[in-house]
């Protein structure tokens, strides 16, 4: 796998952690090829599997971009979803006006997100800590309400995208192949982004960024204009996230202000922290864990409740028929389980999932 070597993951000796990273990336990358097998085995419909996993990949890209500033730069942006919205709206609005070429849409989405990140970053980076969290939220809310008021583009009802971005016919727009092709595209973008983040954080730029996180004054005293470094990181993160937004709009074939609601920004932070901050692959684990739990936890709980019921039924006999339904319906309260899992991760796995894979503390 050339993609993995380019990440430099094979450079250290094979550790448990590296092995897991390779397996996860391989499982993700090869999904379109073994998905038909999953379907024949009766495990999951291949198209649905691709749909769910495409969304995971795209949000993993967004989480990776947030990780660059949050994990390495200590900048907790609570408005990061706004760039998903900007990227998505660029694609949606251009498509609405008949401009369907992805070679125009995507660069514009990235450029626009970068410009907004530049403006927001320049104003926000004067603040620190919780003030930074809240000022980024403020800017995101402002743009969210602009989206809600955009009546020509559906306001809060959103806008359906009738044609996905056209990459000179390379990515089919119709037929069953479109799901496979789009999945492969999303995976390729994710790998590129991971490579880019890895290169960045291990470069001089990344060292300054990390240095500024732990002691900004010392870095300034050493002669580094840390504000500019931090702003550059903020803009790069915004641009990558805008790219994720352009992909997401294509994936859902729909844009709406809900894409940039503050809860989405919160979800991104949760993914990064859950996966493990300041590790290149952490956000991917975080996105996988969070989104797959959201999708499959209710089903899992039903399964567990069913087993419990069968277990007790074997001992005390079956109750009335309706009782089983009511019992299984408890699975609807799956968010209690999700909440408990999050708390458990914080209390017992400092440094998120990545640290569970044999890594002490945060880098």
């Amino acid at each position, binding site marked *: 796998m050339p993609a993995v070597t380019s990440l430099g993951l094979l450079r250290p000796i094979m550790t448990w952690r590296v092995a897991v990273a390779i397996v996860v990336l391989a499982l993700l990358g090869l999904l379109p090829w073994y998905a038909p097998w999953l379907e024949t085995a009766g495990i999951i419909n291949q198209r649905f599997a691709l749909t769910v996993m495409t969304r995971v990949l795209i949000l993993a890209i967004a989480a990776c971009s947030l990780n660059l500033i949050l994990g390495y730069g200590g900048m907790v942006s609570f408005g990061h979803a706004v760039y998903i919205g900007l990227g998505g709206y660029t694609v949606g609005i251009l498509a609405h006006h008949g401009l369907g070429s992805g070679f125009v849409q995507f660069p514009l989405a990235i450029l626009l997100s970068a410009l907004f990140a530049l403006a927001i970053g320049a104003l926000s980076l004067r603040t620190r800590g919780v003030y930074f969290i809240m000022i980024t939220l403020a800017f995101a809310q402002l743009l969210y309400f602009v989206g809600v008021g955009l009546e020509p583009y559906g306001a*809060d009802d959103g806008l359906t995208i009738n044609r996905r971005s056209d990459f000179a016919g390379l990515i089919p727009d119709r037929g069953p192949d479109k799901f496979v092709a789009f999945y492969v595209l999303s995976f390729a973008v994710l790998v590129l982004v991971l490579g880019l983040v890895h290169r960045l954080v291990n470069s001089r730029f990344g060292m300054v960024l990390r240095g500024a996180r732990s002691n900004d004054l010392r870095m300034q005293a050493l002669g580094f204009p840390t504000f500019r470094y931090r702003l550059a990181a903020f803009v790069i993160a915004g641009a990558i996230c805008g790219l994720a937004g352009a992909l997401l709009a294509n994936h859902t074939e*729909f844009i709406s202000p809900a894409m940039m609601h503050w809860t989405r920004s919160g979800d991104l932070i949760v993914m990064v922290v859950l996966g493990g901050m300041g590790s290149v692959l952490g956000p991917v684990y975080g996105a996988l864990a969070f989104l797959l739990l959201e999708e499959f936890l209710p089903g899992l709980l039903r399964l567990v409740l069913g087993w419990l019921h069968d277990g007790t039924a074997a001992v005390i006999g079956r109750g009335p028929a309706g009782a089983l339904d009511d019992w299984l319906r408890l699975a*609807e309260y799956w968010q209690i389980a999700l909440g408990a899992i999050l708390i458990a991760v914080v209390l017992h796995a400092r440094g998120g999932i990545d640290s569970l894979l044999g890594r002490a503390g945060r880098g």
Partner: protein
Amino acid sequence: MKSRLFASAALLGMLAAPAWAQQSIKIGFISTFSGPQASIGQDMRRSVELAVEHLGGKMAGKPVEVIFEDDQFKPEVGKQKSEKLVQQDKVSFVGGYIWSNVLLASLKTVTEDGDTILISSNAGPHQIAGELCHPNFFSTSWQNDQTPSAMGQYVQNKGVKRIYLASANYAAGKDMLSGFKRTFKGEIVGEDLTKWPDQLDFSAEMSKMRSVKPDGVFVFFPGAHGVQFLSQYAQTGLKATIPLYTAFVIDALSLPQLKDLALGVPGAQSWVNDLPNEQNKRYVADFRKKHGTYPSFYGAQSYDTIMLIASAVEGLKGDVSNKDKLRAELMKANFKSVRGDFKFNANHFPIQNFYIQETVKDSDGNFTLKTVGVAMKDAKDAYYEKCKMK
């Protein structure tokens, strides 16, 4: 970890779908089952389950299986759940949808990519009645503008001259105001769009209402918002001085909270629990027996969704594989609606009556709604001519 989750999901699939699943009629149902709007979802699910019960659990001799999914009040989640129902569960019909934005996000997934029938049990954004209409889309509710139009007509007929409008600031809220203005011809002396869904306080708006002294106030505030508005309207003393006219504020879900606050405040609806037809009597009586409360219009529309599906499945003797025949059969609307007469317009929205309802106390002392008049007869929505579908 991923594959383990998938494997578990598969086990679940096996658990939920016994051997006869191949011949069963599968229906997906999307609604909101978590968060502040979960009470609507609960009412809809209860009505769907009651409909299935009334059908003896079978359509054309085949067992019926309904799979409920929670949209969490988010368009993207609703879309993904719709995708799951169509691709993974391979349902023949998807019903439900409370919210316009969830419906709009899911529409293409179900009707076009999935070539599956979608029947909206509540949401009715104007786009789908007009330019976005689709052969696979049907509605057992109404188009958003219609209910407030009925109210506008009622207010107009009453001779009210000056009216103040207030609505929640989202797409359906704006549809509501434009619907009201379509039939009300008097003077609009003020108009407020409030934050949705998190406005805390309406006192600034109410002070304005008092100062311009209108002959009436028309509002659209669904769910918990309506209870909030009406409580504050009473606390300010406005309820005693300026008559209030509503759409989607007072229903069977908000009445147990509003109680006497709702007395004397009319609303409009295409279904009221006392409509005098046999199907409705049976539905309301059995619902009350089972759950101890009156069903809401959300529930009634969901009940109709299942009955509409049943009529088509029966008409085709259980073979729903041919979509052309299925669409033609659904179009006949050959079922007993709780609304009485029911037929589809060219855009697959119903042609139906709209009633004016008022709050009364029933013989047991519960607050409930009563039909007091017909505001519009055999009404068609205002967008069907924009629909290019044949």
